[in-house]
């Protein structure tokens, strides 16, 4: 991978850093909406890399990942909004959100992780739906979640007096709210990248890979497969919780709609489409799948007008249609993902023979 080597050299890192710093300002030229899209792309990078620990490293098929994200998001929303009149600080809420998500992961994982992989998929999927149904309905008789209306006026992220919403002057530059969140998210994403990389090449990472390859053999050499799977599951869940908290603060608003199954599927698709277990691939998958629908959102309508002079199909469904087709086509022609790790590529070529 000459790409990979470039990014590991000093020059490469400096170039990359400069690009990352410049990006939100370049995007702002097209309007703050694009900066917000960028923010979401990075939030999804974070989420996808959290899920990569579960799916890519430990090989567990989790279709309800969004539920943990929801737990984090609602924790923040409830503890820092006028809904209950609470305005706790970030250093309290973020760990609570991550902790609750982790707890949910353990509670769900401990009975189910001994199941066959596909059963785990359906159980996690069901769990995701249960969480969503509760969020939708826990507004009566006691109003906890405010039902489908969701919770509004959520506090932004702030450290002391420094708020991440609104424009601030930094070194004479006017830095907008979305731009500030961008840098926060980049920091978080770098953190999760480092964690992924280090785990992958560790004793724990090797044990996960062994479980993925042959669970019986892994047990026979003394790996406690259940605990290790639970560990991956709980870690992934905690990352989901953190991402949810930031999401909540960034949007200022949450409602159950943001946590539907399609979101879980989207994140899984990012992991698989990019190249499961391969960090650059997952990042690529997350960015593509966040940006592509947005580009389609802005592109599909005008394109139809230009080509046919009228709207033939509803742009929203055309957008999703193209997205679905993209999933199918990528899997058809690049079954190991767009940017698989060298090892996986080798695996596939050899089994393909």
């Amino acid at each position: 991978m000459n790409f990979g080597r470039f990014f590991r050299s000093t020059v490469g890192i400096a170039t990359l850093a400069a690009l990352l710093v410049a990006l939100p300002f370049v995007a702002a030229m097209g309007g703050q909406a694009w900066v917000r899209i960028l923010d979401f792309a990075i939030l999804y990078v974070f989420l996808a890399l959290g899920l990569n620990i579960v799916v890519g490293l430990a090989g567990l098929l989790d279709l309800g990942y969004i539920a943990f994200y929801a737990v984090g998001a609602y924790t923040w929303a409830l503890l820092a909004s006028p809904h209950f009149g609470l305005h706790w600080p970030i250093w309290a809420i973020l760990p609570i959100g991550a902790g609750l998500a982790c707890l949910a992961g353990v509670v769900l994982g401990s009975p189910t992780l001994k199941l066959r992989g596909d059963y785990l998929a359906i159980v996690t999927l069901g769990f995701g739906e249960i969480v969503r149904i509760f969020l939708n309905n826990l507004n009566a008789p006691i109003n906890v979640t405010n039902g489908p209306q969701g919770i509004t006026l959520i506090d932004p992220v702030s450290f002391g007096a420094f708020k991440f919403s609104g424009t601030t002057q930094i070194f004479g530059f006017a830095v907008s709210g979305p731009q500030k969140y961008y840098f926060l998210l980049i920091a978080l994403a770098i953190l999760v990248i480092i964690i992924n990389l280090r785990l992958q090449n560790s004793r724990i990472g090797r044990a996960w890979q062994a479980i993925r390859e042959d669970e019986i053999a892994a047990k026979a050499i003394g790996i406690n497969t259940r605990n290790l799977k639970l560990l991956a599951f709980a870690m992934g869940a905690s990352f989901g919780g953190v991402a949810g908290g930031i999401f909540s603060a960034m949007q200022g608003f949450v409602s159950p709609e943001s946590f539907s199954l399609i979101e879980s599927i989207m994140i899984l698709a990012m992991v698989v489409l990019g190249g499961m277990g391969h960090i650059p691939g997952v990042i690529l998958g997350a960015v593509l799948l966040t940006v592509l629908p947005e580009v389609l959102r802005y592109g599909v309508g005008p394109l139809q007008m230009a080509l046919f002079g009228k709207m033939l199909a509803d742009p929203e469904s055309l957008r999703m249609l193209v997205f679905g087709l993209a999933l199918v086509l990528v899997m058809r022609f690049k079954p190991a993902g767009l940017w698989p790790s060298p090892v996986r590529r080798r695996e596939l070529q050899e089994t393909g023979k």
Partner: protein
Amino acid sequence: MSANLPTPLLEARAVAKHFGGVKALRDVSLSIRRGEIYGLIGPNGAGKTTFFNCMTGLYVPDGGGFTFDGTPLVADASDKAAARGIARTFQNIRLFGNMTALENVMVGRHVRTRAGVLGAIFQNAATRAEEAAIRQKAIDLLHYVRIEERADDLARNLSYGDQRRLEIARALATDPKLLCLDEPAAGMNATETEQLRELIDGIRRDGTTILLIEHDVKLVMGLCDRVAVLDYGALLIEDVPAVVQKDQRVIEAYLGA
């Protein structure tokens, strides 16, 4: 006469296992002494592998149990058996095919090492030292089984004989007190079998007790200190090779099968 012998390393007491109507093991009792090579033979379907699986916690026996190194074995967890010091290979080789040979052995060190998630993330000195030790030990083991030059090849690209050796190296990485080999010579030619014989003998000389399932009677009789014969799940005899070879029931069992 057995009064002044030390306690056996492994003792099986009336182990029974059935699958539906098939009685794979009928009250098998045997004991393996420290430092010996113990052979387990019998016709196809006699229950040898089933005995391994019960002992290593893959199957839960329907009756009886095992004592290992003085304490009972928990019947249902193969990871615990490995932690206690029982390592095994599989009749139909089970390597981690998409990991390299070296990684296969490194992961074998799992139960004897400690580093957790935090260690991995923060890369503290202890973790780095442990990781280096794991790698070194794995390299040494690859030398020991003589496949060091295949260290960076994916396990599934190794030749059949090398895969067998790799599986032994991986088992040895767990620092076992008892190494259980399920038909390690199956599918090997004469030279490979001879090399394997030397390897097994060497492992015993280095202090590991060995339980060997094998169809190759010549190998078993030449290598083992004592041999047990299973037939239709029942133990026919447990004795030194010279006696077993002449036993009428054993001859019949093999001719009958």
